[in-house]
């Protein structure tokens, strides 16, 4: 891992590499990763950008979940107060969690008092174990613990290599501070406002707003560039986007994709995709189409496909989930 991360941080090559089209970029990452296997587990730091004063983000790569580097696809990072540090999402492996911890140590000696997870998905939570020795409070949506319990066997079976060997359930660290509605955390001269959402991307989505810098950390309620993945409720997700649009955010950190500074602009493509999906599935349902014949909804592809990375990995899944949500309307 270390070699990759150094590669991405060497600025001239990084610039060149990140400007080429996504497939080439993916190729770059994979090529280099093949050498990374031998790198020592000793914590090399992830690359970090300071996107607002005291707000640090490591940009996840737009890779599929089975590609080399799949444990480093989510945006993760931390916010520093005068008293302590809050980590927001920890990456898709204990190794990435450790590399995030190393990056924190390059920027501050303050203790990590909170580890916040924006939702249950593997690419956001498996790094939690790297922070256990810091004895932080682990913070999440009130449904996160249940969702992690449901996912336990699945994570251990499908992502065993992303745990410290041997993979074990005790490395999946759930929240001990649960957010039912809203919750404020104080990092010292810096208050973070947590908000728990009704089912949307998942059934345990949590957002973090740092009033001091005006930074909104959306978790996977915002996908940019990469196709959104729907697990819970398209209707709920659209409502959440509506509500999030009212937040006076100057900097927006999405779960996947580039950090932005214009809230409406950042959410527009995802909102458009979800709205089209809902409209198309409703049309199929009105025609009496079965789950097997959602032709209209799949045709959304024609209009939307070119706007999104990794389209084929999620669009059919999203159609199926929306169908099963809307057929009971």
């Amino acid at each position, binding site marked *: 891992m270390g070699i990759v991360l150094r590669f991405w941080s060497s600025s001239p090559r990084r610039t060149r590499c990140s400007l080429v089209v996504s497939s080439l970029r993916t190729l770059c990452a994979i090529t280099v990763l093949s050498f990374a296997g031998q790198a020592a587990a000793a914590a090399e730091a992830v690359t970090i950008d300071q996107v607002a004063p005291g707000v640090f983000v490591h940009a996840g790569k737009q890779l599929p979940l089975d590609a080399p580097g799949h444990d480093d696809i989510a945006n993760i990072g931390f916010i520093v107060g005068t008293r302590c540090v809050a980590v927001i999402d920890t990456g898709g492996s204990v190794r990435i969690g450790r590399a995030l911890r190393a990056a924190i140590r390059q920027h501050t000696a303050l203790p990590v008092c909170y580890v916040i997870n924006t939702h249950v998905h593997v690419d956001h939570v498996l790094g939690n174990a790297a922070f256990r020795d810091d004895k932080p409070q682990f913070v999440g949506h009130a449904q996160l613990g249940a969702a992690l319990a449901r996912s336990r066997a699945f994570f251990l079976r499908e992502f065993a290599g992303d745990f410290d060997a041997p993979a074990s359930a005790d490395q999946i660290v759930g929240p001990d501070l649960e957010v039912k509605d809203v919750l404020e955390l104080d990092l010292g001269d810096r208050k973070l406002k947590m908000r728990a959402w009704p089912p949307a991307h998942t059934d345990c989505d949590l957002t973090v707003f740092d009033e001091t810098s005006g930074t909104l950390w959306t978790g996977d309620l915002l996908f940019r560039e990469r196709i959104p993945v729907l697990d819970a409720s398209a209707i709920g997700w659209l409502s959440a986007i509506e509500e999030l649009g009212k937040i006076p955010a100057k900097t927006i950190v999405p779960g996947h994709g580039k950090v932005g500074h214009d809230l409406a602009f950042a959410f527009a493509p995802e909102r458009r995709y979800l709205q089209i999906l809902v409209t198309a599935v409703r049309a199929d349902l009105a025609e*009496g189409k079965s789950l097997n014949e959602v032709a209209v909804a799949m045709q959304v592809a024609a209009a939307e496909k070119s706007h999104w990375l990794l389209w084929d990995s999620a669009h059919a899944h999203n159609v199926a989930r929306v169908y099963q949500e809307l057929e009971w309307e």
Partner: protein
Amino acid sequence: MMNRNLAMLLLLAVAPAVYADVTPSSSSGAWQGLRATYYGNKEIGEVDEKLMSLAAPASTPDPSATPVTIRFGTQAAGKVKQVRLIIDHNPSPVAATMQLEQGVPIDEIELRIRVDRATSVRAIAELDDGTLEMRSAWVNASGGCSSPPSAAGAGALGDVRFRPGADGKALQVSLRHPNNSGFQIDPISGDAIPPHYVLHMRLRSGEQTLLDADTGISLAENPTVRIASEQSLKGPLTLEAVDSKNERYEATWNSATTAKSGGR
């Protein structure tokens, strides 16, 4: 971001040929046992596509609700006594055993199944002359038996939804029910939730039975049957169901309405 079957989807995209080669041998162990149990040494035909076909997605978009369609050709429609749907590698392989009334012109039956991991899915039909025919399909999936319940908010246990096709020749019947596989985890205790599933579904037109199915935990949440015919389907059609807690559900569809008829 993460979706349960993503890894499997991509695996399939990379190596379809490998899976094709592996299919027969890897599922034969499970199937040989099931075959012996249900069909003994009886010969099972596997050739005539005009008789029957089976459609299932090669890699399912949603492993917890994978649509599988059984179609009968003109030679078979009205002559099928029984169809059994088997998912070799599921913890509970028999998804449904359906008795069809002879002479009833059902050409197509679609069910939604859970698929726990990559498996053969097979339909075995017994015709009125006692001959057996089988069709199978390979489905790539992961986690369909342990995935979370759907977040669809509307509807209560026992609600029944009839959804007729636009041409009046198809009807989808869904029963709002967890059809809990027992492999899901109780969030509070961490224990497996005891199964609570639909044992039996019967579709009748007046007093004439169209389809009578013994069902199990390999059917998806909100058990759904869709039938299609060359002829127009006319109401009233009634669904009767009973679950493992001996709760009974019944609702009737009249062709004129897209009924939201309640259950129980």
